[in-house]
C-alpha cells in the first residue's frame, strides 16, 4: 500500500485527510510541521505529500525548498487556507497542484489519483 505524507498543523484536518486517503487506498503518515516532514522525507519514500504552508517550526515553503534542493521525486499537493498572493510564487517544478481550504473531498481525491497515477517524471 502506497503511503501519503500529510503535513498540517491543524489536527482535525490531519484526521480528515488521513480518513480520506485510507478510503482511496492509501496509508498515511502525519506531520504537524515542516521540521517533522523533512525528517520523515529523509528516510522514507512517499507516493505524494499533502502539504500545508503556514505552520509553526519550519513552514511548507521550506519543505518545498528542501524537496527541490534534494531532488526528491515526490509529487507535492499544497493544501492551504492562504490566498493566491502567497501561492503565486510557489515552485511549480515541485508542486503539482494547489488546493484551497476548505477543499472538496472529491476534488482532492481526483488530484491525488492523478498525480500518483503518472509515472515518475524524468
Amino acid at each position, binding site marked *: 500500500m502506497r503511503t501519503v505524507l500529510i503535513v498540517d*498543523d*491543524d*489536527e*482535525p*484536518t490531519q*484526521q*480528515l*485527510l488521513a*480518513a*480520506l486517503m485510507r*478510503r482511496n487506498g492509501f496509508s498515511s503518515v502525519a506531520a504537524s510541521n515542516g521540521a517533522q516532514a523533512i525528517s520523515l522525507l529523509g528516510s522514507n519514500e512517499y507516493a505524494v505529500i499533502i502539504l500545508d504552508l*503556514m*505552520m*509553526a*517550526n519550519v*513552514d511548507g*515553503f521550506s519543505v518545498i525548498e528542501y524537496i527541490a534542493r534534494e531532488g526528491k521525486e515526490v509529487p507535492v499537493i499544497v493544501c492551504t*487556507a*492562504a*490566498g493566491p*498572493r*502567497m501561492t503565486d510564487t510557489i515552485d511549480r517544478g515541485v508542486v503539482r497542484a494547489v488546493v*484551497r*481550504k*476548505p*477543499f*472538496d*473531498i*472529491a476534488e482532492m481525491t481526483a488530484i491525488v489519483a492523478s498525480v500518483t497515477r503518472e509515472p515518475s517524471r524524468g
Partner: protein
Amino acid sequence: MADRDSRNDAEPPARTAVSDFANELPLFIDAVQDYAIFGLSPTGVIRSWNVGAARILGYHADEAVGRDFSLFYEPADLFSGKPQHELDVARKEGRIEDEGWRVRKDGTRFWANTVITAVHNADGSVSGFAKVTRDLTTRRLAEERLRESEENFRLLVAAVKDYAIFLLDPTGHIATWNAGAQAIKGYKPEEIIGKYFGVFYSDAENAAGKPALELKIARAEGRFEEEGWRVRKDGSRFWANVVITAVHDETGTLRGFTKVTRDVTVRKRADEVQRALIEQREARLKAEEEQRRVEASYRAAQEANRSKDQFLMILSHELRTPMTAIIGWARLLPTLSPSDPVIPQALESIARSADLQAQLIDDMLDVSRIVSGKLRLNLQMVDVADVLNAAVESVRPSAVARNVTLVTSLAGDIGLICADSTRLQQIAWNLLTNAVKFTPGEGRVELSARRTPSHIEITVKDNGQGIASEFLPHIFEPFRQEETPQTRVHGGLGLGLSIVRYLTEAQGGTIMAESAGSMKGATFSLSLPLGMKATEELAWNSGSR
C-alpha cells in the same frame, strides 16, 4: 541799570538846576567799575571821569578830563562827524544810544554800548551830557562766533548732497533748500522756497491730508519718521526715509520744522529682492514640508492598508482552517460505514473546529463593538474564585493536549468584586489560552489571585517562549502578533490581548505584560478595583472606542 536810570531822569527832561555838573555826580558813580560814566560839556569836552571809565578806556582822569570825547572814536567815525552828530541828537531828543567800535588809549578797539543823555539847566538849556559806555566786546565776539558758526552750519547743510535738509515754517511752507534737496527732489531753491511741502506727495496723499497729518504728529510728539514713496519734480517716485522734527524757540513757540529726507530707493529695491528671495525660499520650504506631510500621510495610509490587507489575509486563513475539517467531514461521513471507527474522532474534529471558528467570530464581534463604542458591561457582584476556576476548566483540555501543566493558586479570602462576570471569565480565558499556546510541551502555566484592600490582583505566569523586548510595547495592540504572515507559527487573529486590555480598562483595571525575553517565559499582571464607580461605568458605556 545805570543807563536806564539816567534815561528815567531824562524823561521828562530833567529840570534840575545844575551849575557845576561835575560836582553834582554822586560818589558812588565815581566808584562804578563796570561802566565808564563821565560828564561832557555842551560841546563834548570831558568834565568828569569815573573808575570804570579809566578801566575801560585806559585813560586816567587827569589824562581824559578837559579833552574832547571824540578821542574814543575811530578815524572813520571822526571823518563822518559821528561824535558831533550824537551830541546833536541827544541835545534834540534827550538821549542817544549806539553800539559800535571805540578805541582805547592803547589803540585797541572794543565793542561799546554807549548812551549819551542831555542834562538841562533850569531854563531848559543843555548844561552838558552824561555818557555811559559799556564794554560789550566779549558779548560781541560771542555773537560773531555764533553767527559764524551758524553760517558755517548753514553752508554745511547747504552743501550736503546725500540728504535733503530743509526748514518748513509752522504752516508747512518750505523756508530753506539745500543741495541734497535739489539733487533728490529736482527743484532749484527759487522754484520751491515758499511752496507747501505737499508737492512732494502724491495727489491721493494730499487729498487724504497726509502732509498735514505728519506735521501734526511732529508737533504733538516732537518728531515724525517714516519710509514711503515721495514724488520728484519730474513726477517720478522715490522711496524716502523722512524725519520731520518740530523746532520751538526758548519760549516754547513753534518756529517750524526741520525735514531730513534720504532717497533709499536702491536699498528698498535691494530689500525687496532680498525679501522676494526669502519669501521664495520660505515658499519652497513650505512646499517641501507639505510634500513631506502628504508623503507621510500617504505612507501612513499605505501602512494602514497593508495592515488591513494583512489582517484580512489572516482572517481569511483563520476562518478557512476550521471550515476544512467541518466541510470535509460533513462530505466524508455519509460515505463511511456506520461502524467505521473513525466516526467518533470525526465528530470530535467537527466540534473542535466549530468551537474554534465560533471563538474567532466572537473576538471579531467584540472588537467591532469596542471600535464602535457599543460594548456594554453587565456589572454585578461576582465571586472571583468561581469565575477564575471556570476559565481554568475551559482551558484545561487544550493544556492537557499540549502536555502543559496548569496550576491554580487562589487566596482563600479573595471574595467578591463588582465586575462583569462573563467578561472577567473572558479575560482569564484569553490570558490562559495565550499562555498555553505559547508554552511548549512539559511547560507550566500558573494562575494566581489575591485580594488587596482596594483591588483584586490576578497573575498568569508561564515558562514558555516569552516575548521579545522589541515586541513587548505592542503586545496589547489589536491585530499584532509577534510574527509576519509568512513566518507566523500560531493561529488566531492577534485580537485576544487587545480585547483583554480593553475589557480590563473598561472595568477600571490595569494590565501589564512582563518578559525577560525570548524563551524566558511571560507574566501578565491584572489589577481590578473592588468596586467600580457608576460614573466610570457610564463613561465607558458612552465611550467611542
